């Protein structure tokens, strides 16, 4: 994972690669984050970020609706980590152009949003090797 704090509880979800289940993922993340003591703004950030990762997988993994991908929340003492991963076709994450600040574009917006909303975010992917979205949100003092 992204490193850092001591980890404890893991909550995992394996779901079909279908759009109608993205809201189920949001519900799970929202529930775990709320239990961990995050405030509403941080929970909203995590809901959007995890949805963007799921949407990216549904749109680009070339998995069919019968295939599955995985979401795992790790509730740590001072953070929550979220992993979203598939076994799809992957993409060249290193060579992928970044979204330009201020330029209006539909393409690449999801990953840009994940990075903007989360305290840590990485996208690991190689062609033919699936994709992993790793992200973390810190639990700040006074939230818990």
């Amino acid at each position, binding site marked *: 994972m992204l490193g850092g704090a001591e980890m404890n509880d893991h909550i995992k979800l394996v779901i079909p690669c279908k759009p109608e289940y993205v809201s189920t993922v*949001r519900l799970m993340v929202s529930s775990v984050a709320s239990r961990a003591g995050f405030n509403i703004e941080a929970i909203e950030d995590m809901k959007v970020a995890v949805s963007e990762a799921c*949407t990216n997988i549904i749109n680009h993994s070339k998995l069919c609706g019968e295939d599955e991908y995985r979401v795992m929340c790790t509730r740590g003492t001072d953070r929550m980590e979220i992993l979203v991963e598939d076994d799809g076709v992957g993409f060249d994450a290193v060579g992928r152009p970044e979204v330009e600040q*201020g330029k*209006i574009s539909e393409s690449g917006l999801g990953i840009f949003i994940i990075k903007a909303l989360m305290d840590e975010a990485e996208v690991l992917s190689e062609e033919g090797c699936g994709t992993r979205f790793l992200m973390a949100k810190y639990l700040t003092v006074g939230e818990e």
Partner: protein
Amino acid sequence: MTYAIKKDYDSQRDKWLVVLTGEIDISNAAGLKQELSDAYGEHAADMDVDISGISYIDSTGLGIIISLYGKMRESGNKIKLLNPRDNVKKLLKITQLDKVLC
């Protein structure tokens, strides 16, 4: 995951007044895109979209607005998003879409 849309064309002002409520993501974005495109196809006019009732939107929903913004701009029209909630406002701000859509 549902949304509701109310569309009214004001012929005196030559403007669409659209009210959106609910949540918009990958599961329902295609339907919304069709609804807004149909409206614009019916009357190519500016569009004011009240999104105070939108509790959730992500890049898929924003992509629809961006797409429509581009199409309308080509024909000299504008789309404006009105009264976003704080969570939606934050998303518009980090993507800098607030500068052109609000």
